[in-house]
């Protein structure tokens, strides 16, 4: 692990249906009430590039959602900057989670991306500028007026990434960000992630993509059956 510990996970037990949002798509492959994730200790440092790997149902999605306080553990603790993640205003401000199949609001692309920066209290002009800049970064300049339904899977994924960028977050928790993307979209997504990493962002990616694991990640965490099977950065 490099840098300061940003996330600290201790004695984490998570099962579907155990808490808010826990049973609502936190992952697949386990029934309601089954132990989906059990992690004794895991630290993620600031500015780390981490790849979460493992077979389907191994708990990658659940772990990302738990780190973003979108799911509640049955027991144990998840700290963000030393504070419980579920109560951390800093976590909500600094981090953003991207679904494997992103949810876009039934509206225009501009509305979707603008939603991400609504919390920043910007003027309308500043918000529009930020939206345009975020869309340009993901190669979708001029897409602002398009409806969400008119987008391909790869474009939707890039819109979701633009929306995340517009929040100003510097901690990205990404679930299979290139899984539904075509080659062009996947390349753009990786390029943007490289840029964010170079700026000092912390990036965790759940992925099956070998190229992402080998080319992007500096640390690889393998989950199997909801447990840490291997962590290349555990003793670094």
């Amino acid at each position: 692990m490099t840098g300061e510990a940003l996330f600290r996970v201790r004695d984490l037990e998570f099962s579907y249906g155990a808490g808010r949002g826990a049973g609502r798509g936190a992952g697949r492959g386990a029934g309601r009430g089954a132990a989906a994730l059990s992690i004794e200790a895991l630290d993620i440092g600031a500015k780390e590039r981490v790849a979460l790997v493992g077979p389907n149902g191994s708990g990658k999605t659940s772990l990302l959602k738990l780190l973003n306080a979108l799911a509640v553990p049955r027991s144990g603790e998840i700290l963000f900057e030393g504070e419980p993640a579920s109560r951390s205003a800093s976590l909500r401000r600094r981090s953003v989670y991207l679904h494997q199949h992103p949810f876009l609001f039934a509206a225009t692309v501009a509305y979707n991306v603008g939603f991400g920066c609504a919390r920043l209290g910007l003027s309308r002009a500043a918000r529009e500028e930020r939206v345009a800049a975020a869309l340009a970064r993901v190669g979708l300049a001029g897409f602002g007026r398009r409806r969400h339904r008119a987008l391909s899977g790869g474009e939707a994924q890039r819109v979701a990434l633009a929306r995340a960028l517009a929040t100003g977050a510097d901690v990205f928790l990404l679930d299979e960000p290139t899984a539904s993307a075509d080659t062009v979209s996947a390349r753009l997504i990786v390029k943007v992630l490289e840029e964010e990493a170079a700026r000092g962002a912390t990036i965790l990616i759940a992925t099956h993509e070998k190229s992402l694991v080998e080319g992007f990640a500096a640390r690889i965490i393998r989950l199997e059956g909801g447990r840490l099977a291997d962590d290349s950065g555990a003793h670094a």
Partner: protein
Amino acid sequence: MNEAFGLLLSGDAETWAIVGRSLRFSFFSTVFSLVPGLALGLWLAKGDDRPRRAISAVIGALTAVPTVVIGLFVYGFLSRSGPLGFFGLLYTPSAVVIGQILLSTPIVASLVWAGLSRVDPRFDETVSTLGGRGLAVAGAVLREGAPVFAGAVVAAFGRVTGEVGVAMMLGGNIRFSTRTMTTAIALDASKGEFERAISLGIALLAIALVVNFTVHILRPRNDR
């Protein structure tokens, strides 16, 4: 039948006044049931705990209560000897609207709850992870739930327009005051005057068709 159509097409003043009054009562009762109905529906859709399950069961039951029972219940409150008798509302348009609000509120609540329960679970997560709050969240909920809300409103409007129990018991079917399409049909048919009853029946049928067609149009695509 020709005479019935004639009453409608000739613009018979009393017939159209009854239609207009029915729609007015339905409009106000639907509007006034929106706030409690939407609030209740939203609250029910936000979780699945024991109090919510109990209240949703009660609301589900209320949607099936015969209108005459609701009329009787409100009658008990509004009659001269009832706790609200001093307002003198019985047999006034206000009494009909109050009864119809009680009729339509559970319908709005249950349809909003049912509709929002089917909203993609990623919606909540997306709003949370993006740090949505206040007006931004309200706007997003309205946007995602718009077909659900509109469908609930139209369905409630249809239900109160076609009800007879509340209008009869609380309005008293007073000519030029509380007579609605359904109470007028009941009265005219009992007197053997079928022309107006049939003309009002045609108007009611037309309204029901428009309402159902609108509900169908507004229903989220994946429900069709």
